[in-house]
């Protein structure tokens, strides 16, 4: 080729081609073609609509709604780095680790935007980062980070769904709790007033701390929780749960309803519910736990029962006789003391 030919070709080779992109808010920008084409969605649009697409401001390629200008700029930075062919895997990894350092809100937006542009490597990268944020954290921490509403009822939190975690404790506490609920319900019926829910909330937090495998000695009582006030259907849920949990003791429930005032009936109910004869769920005995674990469990349950009682007495302002449960080593229950007025 003559030098004149070379002179003509050179400027053309230096001219980059650009693609015009429009985000959902109407703003339009132009981007180097090779960078934009790194996104499969943009690539498909161009190929589908022919080479005219995105070649000028008027026929800019419109991007999906989930891609706002801030995210687009981030994604284009990502593409700009990765579309260069010569980089080593190590370089790319190092870049990605730095790139992904951002606050959680932007991380979620980035995952969403990358997904709508079908940029799978970036979706994987942001998902990995989000997983790293989630792993090992307690539900409270996760809710705080992602601003999740704590809108599950206590029963839902206690349901067997979570019995997958730290079993015997939960089961026993489930039973205790259900029993308390039932008594609460009966009280309402009799006295005709709504019971303060805050009683339950604290104890549920304790339960959750067991579930989360925290140090069992440290029992949190976080009063600053934002919990929803319970709805009316709460009561229905209680009875449903009782149904499923204590099919064998349905008659006992009825008994309680009719004779709430008398203390004398209660021992039989407790014993029936907690005794080894219960056919609902496996007996506490059969868990085969080693003695140390069982002792710890006994202590926690007693703690929990005590707290339930005391706070209930405090908040309702009644002189309802607190009922003491005690679980001794071999799983049988007995009432500790009779009650003062």
């Amino acid at each position: 080729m003559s030098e004149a030919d070379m002179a003509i070709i050179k400027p053309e080779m230096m001219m980059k081609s650009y693609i015009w992109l429009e985000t959902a808010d109407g703003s339009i920008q132009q981007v180097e073609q090779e960078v934009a084409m790194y996104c499969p969605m943009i690539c498909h649009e161009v190929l589908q609509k022919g080479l005219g697409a995105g070649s000028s401001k008027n026929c800019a390629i419109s991007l999906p709604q989930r891609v706002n200008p801030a995210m687009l700029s981030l994604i284009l930075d990502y593409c700009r780095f990765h579309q260069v062919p010569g980089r080593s895997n190590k370089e790319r990894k190092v870049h990605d680790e730095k790139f992904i350092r951002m606050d959680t809100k932007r991380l979620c937006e980035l995952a969403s935007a990358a997904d709508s542009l079908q940029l799978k490597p970036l979706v994987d990268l942001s998902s990995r980062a989000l997983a790293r944020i989630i792993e090992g954290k307690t539900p409270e921490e996760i809710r705080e980070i992602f601003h999740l509403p704590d809108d599950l009822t206590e029963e839902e939190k206690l349901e067997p769904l979570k019995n997958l975690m730290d079993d015997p404790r939960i089961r026993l506490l489930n039973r205790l709790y259900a029993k308390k609920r039932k008594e609460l319900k009966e009280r309402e019926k009799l006295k005709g007033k709504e019971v303060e829910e805050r009683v339950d909330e604290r104890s549920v937090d304790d339960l959750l701390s067991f579930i989360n495998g925290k140090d069992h000695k440290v029992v949190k009582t976080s009063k600053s929780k934002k919990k929803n006030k319970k709805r009316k259907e709460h009561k229905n849920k209680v009875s449903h749960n009782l149904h499923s949990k204590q099919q064998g003791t349905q008659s006992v429930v009825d008994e309680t309803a009719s004779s709430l005032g008398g203390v004398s009936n209660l021992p039989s109910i407790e014993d029936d519910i907690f005794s080894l004869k219960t056919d609902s769920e496996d007996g506490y005995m059969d868990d085969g736990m080693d003695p140390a674990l069982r002792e710890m469990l006994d202590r926690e349950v007693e703690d929990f029962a005590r707290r339930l009682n005391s706070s209930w007495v405090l908040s309702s302002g009644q002189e309802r006789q607190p009922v003491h449960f005690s679980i001794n080593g071999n799983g049988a229950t007995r009432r500790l003391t009779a009650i003062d007025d």
Partner: protein
Amino acid sequence: MGESPDLISDLPQSILENILTRLSLRDAIRTSVLSTKWRYKWSTLTDLMFDEKCVAPSTDRAVVETNLVRFITGVLLLHQGPIHKFHLSTSFLQCRPDIDQWLLFLSRNGIKELVLELGEGEFRVPSCLFSCLKLTRLELCHCEFDPPKSFNGFSSLKSLNLHQILVSPEAIESLISGCPLLEFLSLSYFDSLVLSISAPNLMYLYLDGEFKDIFLENTPKLVAISVSMYMHEDVADFEQSSDYNLVKFLGGVPLLEKLVGYIYFTKYLSIGDDPGRLPITYIHLKTIELYQVSFEDANEVLVLLRLVTHSPNLKELKVSASPIQLFPLEEESFDLFERDYLDYKLPRLETVRMTDVSGIRNELEFIRFLMGTSPVLEAVVVTSSLSDKDARMEMVVELLRFPRVSPRAQLLFLQD
């Protein structure tokens, strides 16, 4: 009561599952307590990996076992939709009727990848496994495998890994031939296995155990082979076959790129009547690693030489001499190096690594041969097993004498 909007729950399910699969199963399931929206987000995950870390640790084995069983059963019951991957790796479980039930459940839910690594014992794989016809990967460890007569193989299976499995050789053979798409095969921990492998799509073969006789009958696409062959007590068996094992084993693998052999593999290949020629050239073979080669045994050296000279694109060669002296032979003088391979060239060989060299004639001649035939040789690394300093020095002096065809070739000595 903050007005901050939920950042994450409304992301598309595909992203959320992407995130959940990266958590441990335990953490993923815990997300069900976060909020109403998150209650069942985990339950459609298609990949479930279980091990004893899913439950709280305990010093009592029985407790861990019970909890783990409860956990897995609970997860399966709460799960929704198909399950594609199920991995269970734990020594805490062995024979339990629960495992049968889980496998039955999986067989009805489209299982594709099943990995079952149990503790030592004799768990008998239930018959429902053989109706999982969508299986693409199967890995079993410490099980008894007994397919029913009506079983015709897994038509979609690509990867098969059997480790310490109680199974009849006929069952393995028919299983392999009943899986036409099989690409990866690993058989380990077997006793005196006699096997004829017919797998037209097989690319990777890994064998580890006591094999009496292996015939690669139809494996034209094999790309990588790794064999650890242990010695059967009855040594005489090794000598009985009349076919040349080198041809029986490596005669039908023209696409081979990597060959690795341990323990008695080279000895195994050397057995049989030598036809004098190898009918095949390994155009793609780039790496040969043969360990525990007995250089005193002329037949073994011949195998090594044949493989090397029939691999024109060989790039990397690793050989370790054998400290295992089962048959202390008289060292045969080996003229082969001069006789047949005088003008031979190894045009692409770049690195040679020889370990456990004790300085016997054949070893040195082999190195001299390599250095004299490799024009692009860059490094010959020699590690000696000799403890005597003088003997080592003698060997080094000898090696330094050898002429080198490659100007860049370096001779490196490493201490053992």
